């Protein structure tokens, strides 16, 4: 029995020692990420790692597996390690608050990436600039229609920041820089593909001429495309948002004209850079907007 026991301990310790990295004196930054079971956040971490490597900083990445309690424990462990700064990608804006307060107490500066926190002191929030994304979509649609035509806007869940900001950017561009295009219908389809389908079916019934559609996310635009196909309506330019796999496939086969893509790697990179600037005594702004890019068939 004693042999087995010894064996167990030896095996466990061997497993552990293989991968232990040694500490040094470069700045150490913790990154608590909501989940690594989503390509978006994996890419975000890769961007952060690249920026840390470039700056000679050490990055400790902890995965909360989409569980708020795990994330709270991870952040406590980062605080216990005495890291110099923590980048937090909250699983939930409310549940992260006590963890941020704990870091505040420990005097460790906090930066939020992608999702914001509902409380506590945060040095800087780094996330996609959805207003600019909405403008990007409007500009593309305007150019595609030659500066004139009738368009429809499918809105996301009312009250969400994504729906608000994407719509604001889209409408600001249309009303200021593209006055030839008229928004003839504006309805919510709650970020949902099935609702995108039914809502756009109704709009098609009501409007004889539609030249373009912008939806606040890809799910709704894919629903709208189905509705148009079923109704046999052609010549409509569709623009979505998020660049999900289905949407990119639709762009490649020509049914979707464009979709706006977030740049998770850039979010991670700018997050780490903000932390390093701050630790070096530099000024950082409270909100770091991250540019978006447009995915089109070349």
């Amino acid at each position, binding site marked *: 029995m004693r042999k087995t026991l010894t064996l167990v301990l030896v095996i466990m310790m061997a497993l*552990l020692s293989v991968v232990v990295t040694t500490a040094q004196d470069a700045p150490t930054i913790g990154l608590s990420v909501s989940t690594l079971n989503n390509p978006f956040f994996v890419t975000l971490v890769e961007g952060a790692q690249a920026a840390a490597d470039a700056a000679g900083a050490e990055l400790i990445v902890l995965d909360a597996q989409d569980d*708020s*309690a795990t994330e709270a424990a991870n952040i406590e462990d980062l605080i216990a390690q005495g890291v110099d700064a923590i980048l937090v990608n909250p699983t*939930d804006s409310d549940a992260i*608050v006590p963890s941020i307060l704990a870091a505040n107490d420990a005097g460790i500066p906090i930066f939020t990436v992608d999702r914001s926190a509902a409380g506590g002191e945060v040095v800087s929030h780094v996330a996609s600039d959805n207003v600019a994304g909405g403008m990007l979509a409007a500009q593309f649609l305007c150019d595609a229609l030659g500066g004139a035509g009738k368009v429809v806007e499918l809105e996301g869940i009312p009250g969400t920041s994504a729906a608000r900001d994407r719509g604001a950017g889209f409408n600001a561009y249309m009303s200021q820089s593209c006055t030839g295009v008229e928004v003839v219908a504006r309805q919510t389809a709650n970020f949902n593909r099935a609702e995108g389908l039914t809502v756009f079916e109704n709009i098609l019934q009501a409007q004889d001429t539609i030249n373009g559609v912008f939806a606040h996310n890809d799910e709704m635009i894919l629903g709208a495309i189905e509705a148009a196909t079923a109704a046999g309506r052609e010549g409509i330019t569709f623009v979505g948002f998020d660049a999900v796999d289905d949407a990119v496939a639709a762009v490649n086969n020509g049914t979707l004209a464009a979709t706006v893509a977030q740049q998770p790697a850039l979010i991670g990179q700018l997050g780490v850079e903000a932390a390093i600037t701050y630790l070096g005594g530099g000024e950082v702004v409270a909100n770091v907007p991250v540019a978006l890019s447009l995915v089109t068939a070349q």
Partner: protein
Amino acid sequence: MTSHVRDLSWQVVVGGMLRRGIVLIVLVGLMTYFASQSDRFFQSRNLVNILEQNAALMIVTVGMTLTMLIAGIDLSVGSVAALAGAISAGLIVNNGFSFEVSVVVTLALGFAIGLLNGGLIIWGKLPPFIATLAMLGIGRGLTLLYTEGRPISLNGVDQYTFYGRGDVTLPVFGQTPVSVLVALAVVMIVSVILSATRFGLHIYAIGGSEETARLAGVPVTRVKMIVYGSSGMLAALGGMLLTARLFSAQPQAAVGMELDAIAAAVLGGVSLFGGVGNVIGAVTGGLLIGVLSNGMNLLRLASFLQQMIQGTVLVVAVAIDMIIKRIEGV
């Protein structure tokens, strides 16, 4: 511990000692190793962190141990914990109930769900695995329905969040987290009930052989109902601690907690086949999981690797359990 250990052969005695000792040996070994690798590990703040991070799991593990001792299982604990967190928060935030009333109502609800589990098992003749698996789904669904899929924030409800993040100053220990005290109290109380009361004896008797227990005059139905009720109530208590710790009730809180609790109990020497084990062992098993995850974080292990090592430790522990069982000849 159990009455049936007393008058048996030396193998059983040695086996019993190993069963109880092994988790402690591994725990001490791991802690020594982590301390040698990271000077942060043995700081009192970190040790308190580990207890605090696992307070809810400890409580839920106690309930799980009770059901495993009667050769049952309770897979619904994670869902019940989430539902309890949501309802206790909702009663205060949405319905204006006082904190005390909300806690009592929620504990009663947890007990009632546990009784429902017990009823399905005893009168519905469902295997415990199936009855509580069904409740796992129902509980999570109810939580999502009640919260409409959104978290309920308790930010500012200090009376509640005190139990998740608050400290009290004790004579010898100094600043001690309230959540840890609650967990230790539960462990102590249930431990005493198991080892020093007739009810505890009945639980072990049922786990040893339900039929024999019945013939010996143990009120099997009543004991089983109380065990499942208690598991539900302890899950509710754990869920409220979790909610207090996060200042918010999360609809997806405690997903998979039943597996952590089972792993903790098995690591701590509680048999999956009933009748063998105790609460202190099970809770030590929970701490082992907590120490492992904390230590691996401090050693900066990649997170995917961490999950692998945790799985490996569980397999090794269960293998040892089987070996011991062979020695005992059970």
